[in-house]
């Protein structure tokens, strides 16, 4: 093939346009499915922190259960989720998060409407070491926060690890730093949320 100046450029333009249009088409075809998957993930998390069990893990069932129980609200620029029963607010779910050992940890926590109990929490993303800090997203750790009494929390110290005298939760063995940061941002976020909510009234 003889070397010309124009041919490679035209070739590259044509081939790029061709492949890009394939990708654009695929992206267009799947964009709704992907958005729906992400919504399902979020709904699953929110239902989990409220301790509401959807009838099945089917995305449609999750969506229906979510719409039945949960409403969205704005608080200080953040989206929070509210569960109401007979027009009366039962519980709130709000975002939590902070820096873990390796990166940002993000999740949601739910609290009862009288701020006396933590209903549950879940993490949507973290980059802690699998098998060590990564176990924060495992059931035994998260289960400890179900129905955790918050009334004993003084000076924003709601989560205290055993064996401290007033400890209420077990940290993860071998993951001291991750456990510490989880309790740090949890305490901060719970405190902030209660203050914001109370200040609103």
């Amino acid at each position, binding site marked *: 093939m003889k070397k010309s100046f124009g041919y490679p450029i035209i*070739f*590259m333009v044509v081939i790029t346009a061709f492949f890009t249009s394939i990708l654009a088409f*695929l992206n267009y075809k799947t964009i709704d499915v992907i958005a729906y998957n992400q919504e399902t993930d979020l709904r699953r998390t929110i239902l989990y922190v409220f301790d509401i069990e959807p009838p099945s893990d089917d995305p449609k069932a999750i969506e229906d259960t979510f719409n039945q129980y949960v409403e969205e609200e704005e608080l200080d620029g953040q989206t929070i989720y509210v569960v109401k029963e007979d027009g009366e607010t039962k519980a709130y779910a709000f975002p939590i998060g902070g820096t873990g050992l390796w990166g940002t940890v993000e999740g949601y926590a739910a609290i009862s409407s009288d701020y006396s109990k933590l209903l549950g929490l879940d993490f949507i993303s973290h980059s802690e070491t699998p*098998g060590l800090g990564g176990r924060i997203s495992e059931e035994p750790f998260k289960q400890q926060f179900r129905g955790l009494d918050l009334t004993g929390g003084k000076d924003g110290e709601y989560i205290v690890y055993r064996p401290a005298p007033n400890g209420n939760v077990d940290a993860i063995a*071998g993951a001291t730093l991750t456990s510490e940061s989880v309790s740090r941002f949890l305490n901060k976020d719970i405190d902030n949320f209660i203050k914001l909510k109370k200040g609103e009234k």
Partner: protein
Amino acid sequence: MANSKKIIKDGLWDDNPIFRQVIGICSALAVTNLMLNSLIMGLGLMFVTAFSELTVSLIRKFTPKHIRMMVQVLIISVYVIILDIFLKAYYPEMSKALGPYVGLIITNCIIMGRCEAFAQNNSPLPSFLDGLASGAGYTFVLLLVAFFRELLGFGTIFGYPVLGDSWTNWTIMIMPPGAFFILAIIIWVARSLSPEEKKEGGTI
């Protein structure tokens, strides 16, 4: 037919990308702490390698030689994005588990290496086959590494507990250093089983 047999044998064993050519090991170290992740990663790589080689081979006669690398990278990235979109849409849990590594398939030296070394000089069908075989060779080593890491690190295989509660998990196997040990042992064993033939023309 003898030729395609040789291509498959080369990809799987004689010229295995991981333990013979020692390329593409970054992802072999990164995603191999669970067997399921490794399997999906391997299948993804097979798909991308095979179709990239097919495409490169199809247009090799029209591609100006001095811009062929650009064209190859473009083709590879197209297939990687297709795979990424597919996983996100139809297998979101796996897309989450593999995280950035799906996108990083594009930097896997196996694909570029095979496109340049094989697809550039061969007709489409053998190229496609070569992609499948190289990908399968990669998948097979990944699964082998993951087998030991998951077994020792979690006591499970494909998520099923096999070692029981009395087993103490080796945390190092879950973390990246575990992969170095296992991969090195596998390369050592594989190379002792079939020592590299002397290259004709004398070696240094």
